[in-house]
């Protein structure tokens, strides 16, 4: 692969990161290839491995860094996204990656469903409360006692609904944070482990290949 092609592929893989970080990384690798000179470019790129391997290393490190700087829900979600990209970019077996993604997806969907159902409870409390209050006012002319009872119950329901709302917001923040930390901690360590495993396999294969070619002439 040509140097330009290699660098272009790397840039494409990094597209999810902020432009400044991408440029910084690109400058480093570009400069490095300039330094080794045209005759050693090929071997250097071979030693680096595929552009996606380097990209996943950079993104992995970026995701960890991001989580420690700003653990808010929005950043958390984009971290999950970057981690997933890093997992896919690494050369682990595709079925394994798919399984991992499925597990994460299941986790995300479950947490979102739980939070959404709680939100529904809050809204329905408030809604039924308002309806009951209106019913109470309608009954005012017929029976004061019943009307007061209805209005009271309505106020209670509305209050309960409004009280649950902040809990739902708080829970959703916690939930997304949990997913984000889970992803960056466990998935990344898994991904890095599998990556080193892959590298070891690749180097032993290389060595075996060299041995075989060395033996061949004799």
């Amino acid at each position, binding site marked *: 692969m040509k140097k330009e092609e290699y660098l272009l592929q790397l840039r494409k893989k990094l597209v999810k990161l902020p432009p400044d970080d991408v440029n910084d990384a690109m*400058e480093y690798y570009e*400069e*490095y290839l300039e330094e080794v000179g045209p005759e050693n470019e090929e071997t250097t790129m071979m*030693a*680096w491995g595929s552009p996606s391997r*380097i990209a996943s*290393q*950079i993104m992995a490190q970026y995701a960890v*860094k991001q989580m420690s700087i700003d653990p808010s829900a929005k950043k958390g979600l984009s971290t999950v996204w970057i981690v997933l990209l890093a997992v896919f970019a690494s050369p682990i077996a595709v079925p394994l990656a798919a399984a991992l993604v499925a597990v994460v997806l299941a986790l995300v969907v479950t947490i979102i469903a739980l939070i959404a159902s709680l939100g529904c409870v809050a809204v329905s409390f408030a809604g039924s409360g308002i309806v009951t209050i209106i019913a109470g006012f309608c009954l005012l002319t017929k029976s004061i006692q019943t009307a007061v009872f209805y209005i009271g119950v309505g106020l209670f329901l509305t209050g309960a609904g409004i009280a649950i709302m902040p809990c739902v917001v708080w829970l959703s923040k916690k939930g997304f944070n949990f997913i984000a930390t889970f992803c960056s901690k466990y998935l990344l360590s898994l991904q890095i482990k599998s990556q080193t495993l892959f590298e070891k396999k690749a180097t032993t294969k290389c060595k075996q290949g060299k041995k075989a070619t060395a033996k061949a002439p004799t």
Partner: protein
Amino acid sequence: MVFQLGSALLDACVLAVLTKADTYGYILTQNVKEMIDVSESSLYPVLRRLQKDDCLTTYDQPFQGRNRRYYSITEQGRERLTEYAEEWQQYKTKVDKILIGGIEQ
């Protein structure tokens, strides 16, 4: 090398190389590679991390019509290195005790 190199040790090695002189990416990588077995591609994340932690700064210097990015250790980087060196000394003594001296009865 059979022993795994953690990120802290890698940071310490890079900082140690930079205490001698400012240097640019390629030479820095070669220097670190002389000491320890590290893949070339894994050094960029280390440099980036150290830079974000304000342990090193960079500046560009023109060379043959292009730029070389030089890395320079900061005061904070030196402090970090001293910490690492102390920690390493303690760790090393402990491991030596077990590996070489055997556990004393």
